């Protein structure tokens, strides 16, 4: 069956990509290493959206969980003095998981535009709270120290993005992407196709469609939170506008469409393309960078409706 084969192929692909990225570290200029790491962080949020898209759902509010992850890590650092990136990641994932579990009881009964906008509403509520909370720096946010890993503290002179942080992000992302790939090939992933295609039939197969949506929602939230943790660790600063604001949520949906939902690698490739286009557009056409991004998306929708990943499918189709 093609599906099993594709899981194995993806596992191989993830392993190769991980090894290559780690081996490239000494050769990568700082900006490139930063772009890779930031793309992995953002790509995790988009990977969560990919799960929801497989369920036929779109959330315009993933910024909510991105912010929860980022703030949980930053708060753990600021108020508890925690510097370990692993502990910060767990804090981010656990907080987002708990919030998604509770909100899931509200959103799991909704589909389509209502699901999308409910999430937008939640994220804007959080944005409002964060922007008004003086102790969290209001709209200015606050800073996060240089993270450590299992007692290993990087050289403070080496800058923020050390090999430890880079390696941690690359390996964690690889493990998580592998896990999501397994999940999508398992009964819960297929149940998602059932939710998308025909919920009535799914119910008559004895499956709780709402329960399945709830699980997917929590999974997507945890991914967004981990992406938030990584982003905050890389940037060293967290603000409401860069995490919970609706334009950030919109950006993730943009990247999800850019990449397509064909494979767990698509979100990361699309996020990297997005970061590169934005960086170069900002540099060479500072007044027109939104327009360039818009044109990129337009071209993808017109010529690659399955997203960038469908390019890979087309190439393979020709080879086979």
């Amino acid at each position: 069956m093609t599906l099993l084969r594709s899981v194995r192929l993806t596992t191989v692909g993830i392993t190769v990509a991980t090894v290559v990225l780690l081996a490239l570290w000494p050769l990568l200029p700082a900006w490139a290493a930063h772009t890779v790491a930031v793309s992995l962080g953002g790509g995790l949020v988009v990977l969560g959206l990919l799960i929801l898209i497989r369920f036929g759902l779109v959330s315009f509010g993933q910024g909510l969980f991105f912010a929860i992850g980022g703030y949980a890590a930053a708060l753990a650092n600021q108020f508890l003095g925690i510097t370990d990136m692993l502990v910060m990641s767990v804090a981010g994932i656990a907080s987002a998981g708990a919030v998604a579990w509770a909100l899931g009881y509200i959103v799991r009964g909704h589909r389509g535009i209502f699901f999308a906008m409910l999430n937008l509403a939640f994220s804007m509520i959080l944005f409002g709270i964060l922007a008004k909370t003086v102790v969290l720096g209001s709209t200015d946010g606050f800073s996060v120290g240089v993270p450590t890993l299992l007692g290993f503290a990087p050289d403070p002179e080496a800058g923020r993005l050390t090999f430890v942080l880079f390696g941690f992000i690359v390996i964690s992302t690889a493990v998580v992407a592998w896990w999501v790939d397994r999940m999508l090939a398992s009964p819960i992933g297929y149940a998602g196709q059932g939710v998308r295609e025909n919920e009535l039939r799914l119910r008559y197969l004895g499956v709780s469609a709402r329960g399945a949506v709830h699980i997917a929602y929590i999974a997507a939230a945890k991914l967004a939170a981990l992406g938030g943790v990584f982003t905050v660790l890389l940037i060293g600063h967290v603000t409401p506008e860069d995490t919970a604001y609706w334009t950030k949520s919109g950006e993730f949906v943009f990247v999800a469409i850019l990449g397509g939902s064909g494979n767990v690698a698509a979100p990361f490739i699309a996020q990297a393309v997005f970061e590169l286009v934005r960086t170069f557009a900002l540099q060479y056409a500072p007044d027109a960078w939104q327009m360039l991004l818009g044109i990129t998306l337009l071209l993808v929708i017109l010529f690659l409706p399955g997203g960038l990943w469908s390019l890979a499918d087309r190439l393979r189709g020709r080879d086979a």
Partner: protein
Amino acid sequence: MPEVLLETRSLGKRFGAVIAAEDVNVSVTAGEIVGVIGANGAGKTTFCNMVTGYLTPDLGQILFRGKDITGCTVGEATEAGIHRSFQIPQLFPGLTVYENLLLAVGVFGHRRPPWWQPLVRPEVENEATAIMERYRIAESAATRVDRLPQGVRKLLDIAMAMVGQPAMILLDEPTSGISTKEKFDVMGNVIDALRKSAATVLFVEHDMEVVGRYADRVIAFREGRVLADGTPRVVLEDPAVIEHVVGRRPGHPPDA
């Protein structure tokens, strides 16, 4: 004495002023093939919907294997062993026939499906393949459902409903939308396959030829009530049933 599988006691359901079911007492014995007939709006589909947990009756009780299942959810009825097919097939239109069955077999009965094992495993594949063969739809395996002819969709819908080997299956108009030429083929296939699975069958049908040929017993509904209940020969010849359900045959003048 065979087991009484399904029993309804004084079932009642109203939609505003419309009486969809009133004092419905039906008892189905294991192994029976029961045809349910009635004009449009007579309460056949409401009966199916109540028995499968899609609708909650206003009055009365539903017993399945002696256990009260009144007001249970669709999922609970499915788990108890009552499945159904649909007048308009309820399938996963973007997937192929084979993928539909893989999905159905792989997720069946998981209230919250697990994620720690791949769905596509040899035993799931074998079962999906066996089901396709049993219902003679294997040659359409790789065809997307939205490109299938109606007859194959109907078969697949019933095959999907039979995943998990229910003790009882309700077929809602299994031959509707199928050409006269195909209907006996389709129904013959279905009844063959269902007999092999030893399922008790209750089928709603408008086509009296089909009812007469396949049912062991016929229940006629009218305005939410049971009008007649008995062998096909008795029920289909009952003057009240002819008057309200079957209609007069050509050659039988109204006053004859």
